[in-house]
């Protein structure tokens, strides 16, 4: 029924072998950089353990910390809004804009607004939205979703960006020099930034103790946007909280190293109070997170700091591209978050993995991603979301492997069929195994047959 979703999209992606190789290499390069800088920190594993502990602690007292954050933020003149779901989040932002007659919004670094579908919502209400992060701008111009949570346009090659910019910025269609392309985008982006009525950013960390938020970027456009516009709106999921400023150091050391192999992002900006004159709004969004917090087997996933390391290391993600996941958050972390949002829709995602385990190893907050993938698989099957032939095959296989007699009998028939298979290569090539692989060459005698004949006296 749904199990082919990721597989189908991934097959389409891999059909372009050369592109698949390029995508894989580009992300492997990022992982290799991550390896190099993390191995240079002797206390890396200790940092991961501490970060994991801080997040577990925070999640266990999340209601208290959220209220502490609100109290401290409000004391500094910040307007705090609470949104139960995506729709409420979008309406709150429209309300803030409408109140000031704002029609031009610049945005930067927010996967949450992707999750809420904010751009489409605002555009339908006559608001002009310009994503100012270059990667986000590229996917916005191409009417696409980000394919990666840190490098949104990583699926696009230089020439494709060149073609897109030729359409929008009048560069030569042959232009594929990254510096010249970035220059071409800069002029229109600067105009949008200077002309904006409001600026929206995401939040990397919200600190309960101070009521302040922290935004980590490399381009500085998020900062430019909210320093120029009279209104700054910051949107965050409830899980972005950390208790104290002292905790921030742990996460800042982990985040950029895990994400891109940088010691720290070029900009780590702290926002605590509105500029004068000016407004600073923080929108705190639930949108299913409380429900996820109530799932003991899966709540740990809310510790995610969105570094993207699990995407970069995932051999499946690297060869299938972010869009193949059909979810706001792709890759291994998306594959354990998305089923909690809509199990039927995302039923194929926990299976988009070989359970190789590398995602769990690179996770800076030690989320047991492979363990969760395994557990989601069980819930997908129990929920009736496996396709019927596979469900039946597993039931049948379970009965065969549960009985010595059936097993020996099925083994003999199976080996006979494998020996006959080479006579019908066209048939073999129509099976999922045989499409690109030969079947094993089956022996006449199983090991147990041999053992019985020679040893079992």
């Amino acid at each position, binding site marked *: 029924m749904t199990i082919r979703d990721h597989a189908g999209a991934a097959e389409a992606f891999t059909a372009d*072998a050369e592109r698949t190789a390029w995508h894989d290499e580009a992300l492997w390069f990022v992982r290799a950089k991550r*390896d190099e800088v993390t191995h240079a920190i002797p206390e890396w594993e200790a940092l991961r353990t501490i970060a994991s502990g801080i997040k577990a602690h925070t999640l266990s007292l999340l209601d208290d910390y959220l209220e502490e954050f609100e109290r401290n933020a409000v004391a500094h003149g910040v307007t705090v809004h609470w949104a139960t779901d995506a729709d409420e989040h979008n309406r709150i932002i429209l309300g803030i804009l409408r109140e000031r007659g704002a029609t031009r919004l610049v945005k930067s670094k927010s996967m949450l607004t992707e999750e809420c579908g904010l751009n489409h919502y605002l555009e339908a209400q006559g608001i002009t939205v310009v994503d100012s992060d270059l990667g986000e701008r590229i996917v916005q111009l191409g009417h696409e979703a980000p394919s990666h949570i840190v490098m949104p346009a990583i699926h696009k090659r230089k020439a494709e960006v060149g073609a897109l910019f030729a359409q929008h910025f009048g560069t030569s269609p042959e232009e594929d020099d990254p510096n010249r392309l970035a220059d071409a985008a800069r002029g229109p982006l600067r105009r949008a930034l200077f002309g904006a009525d409001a600026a929206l950013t995401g939040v990397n960390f919200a600190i309960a103790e101070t009521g302040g938020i922290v935004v980590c970027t490399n381009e500085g456009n998020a900062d430019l946007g909210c320093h120029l516009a009279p209104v700054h709106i910051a949107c965050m999921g409830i899980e972005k909280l950390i208790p104290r400023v002292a905790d921030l150091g742990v996460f800042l050391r982990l985040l950029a190293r895990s994400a891109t192999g940088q010691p720290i992002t070029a900009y780590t900006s702290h926002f605590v109070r509105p500029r004068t004159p000016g407004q600073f709004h923080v929108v705190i969004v639930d949108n299913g997170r409380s429900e996820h917090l109530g799932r003991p087997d899966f709540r740990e996933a809310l510790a995610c700091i969105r570094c993207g390391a699990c995407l970069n*290391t995932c051999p499946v993600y690297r060869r299938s591209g972010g869009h193949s996941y059909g979810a706001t958050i792709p890759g291994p972390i998306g594959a354990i978050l998305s089923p909690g949002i809509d199990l039927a829709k995302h039923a194929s995602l926990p299976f988009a993995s070989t359970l*190789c*385990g*590398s995602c769990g190893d690179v996770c800076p907050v030690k989320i047991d991603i492979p363990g969760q993938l395994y557990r989601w698989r069980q819930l997908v099957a129990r929920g009736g979301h496996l396709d019927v032939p596979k469900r039946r095959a597993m039931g049948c296989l379970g009965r065969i*492997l549960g009985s010595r007699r059936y097993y020996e009998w099925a083994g003999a028939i199976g080996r006979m069929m494998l020996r006959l298979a080479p006579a019908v290569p066209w048939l073999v090539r129509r099976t999922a195994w045989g499409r690109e*692989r*030969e079947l094993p060459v089956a022996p006449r005698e199983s*090991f147990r047959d041999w053992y019985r004949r020679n040893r079992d006296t």
Partner: protein
Amino acid sequence: MTVALFIPCYVDQCYPQVARATLAVLEARGVEVVFPMEQTCCGQPMANAGCQDDARAASERFVRTFSAYDTIVAPSGSCVAHVRHHFDQLPPTDAVRRVRARTVELCEYLLTLPEAPVVEFPYRVGVHVGCHTLRTLHQGTPSELGASGDGPLHTLLRRMPGITLVPLDRADECCGFGGSFAVDEPAVSARMGSDRVADHRRHGAEVMVSADMSCLMHLEGIIRRQGPPLPVMHVAQLLNGERP
């Protein structure tokens, strides 16, 4: 001490030579080995496909068959990882706890024995490390956790005179087998496998060696489809004096 040999279902049926080599290698080191005939499978194929309930009969059979033994040795890191880590789905009886604690991967077990007679293997070998052996059983250090630390498989191979272990661009990237993943996602699975094979070929491997036959079944299938030939062998076969 008697060791019970667990031969994974697909090895029993498709690779009896690997099972015979495992038996021979253990016996050559003076171990008394029995192969309990009641065994079938650990249950991993169903459980990894999300059908833990369908795996239960096989897993319970495994426990019944092996709970009387002090040591259960299997030539497959993946199956051992399943017994040790996923038998928590069974009620935690003494028998279940015992087999979970006492099921050991072949290479790890061999390293607990006195060193055996040396066997030469004058070939350039590409080592394929199974992910469950590396990242679930923690044999060695994966490249993402530190400068690649070798596990028991490498240790055993390095003792063989004449052997050259070829360096690889990606020492421990997954081969793409992944049980039902191989047929659920055939395109990505095959692509991952091709990339592994290409890495080994690029570095002049004359034979690919692993302690996990399931990865090799997948990789061999790709090698035979794409050509040219590149033999694959289980480490037990090398230790048993076999040549490609």
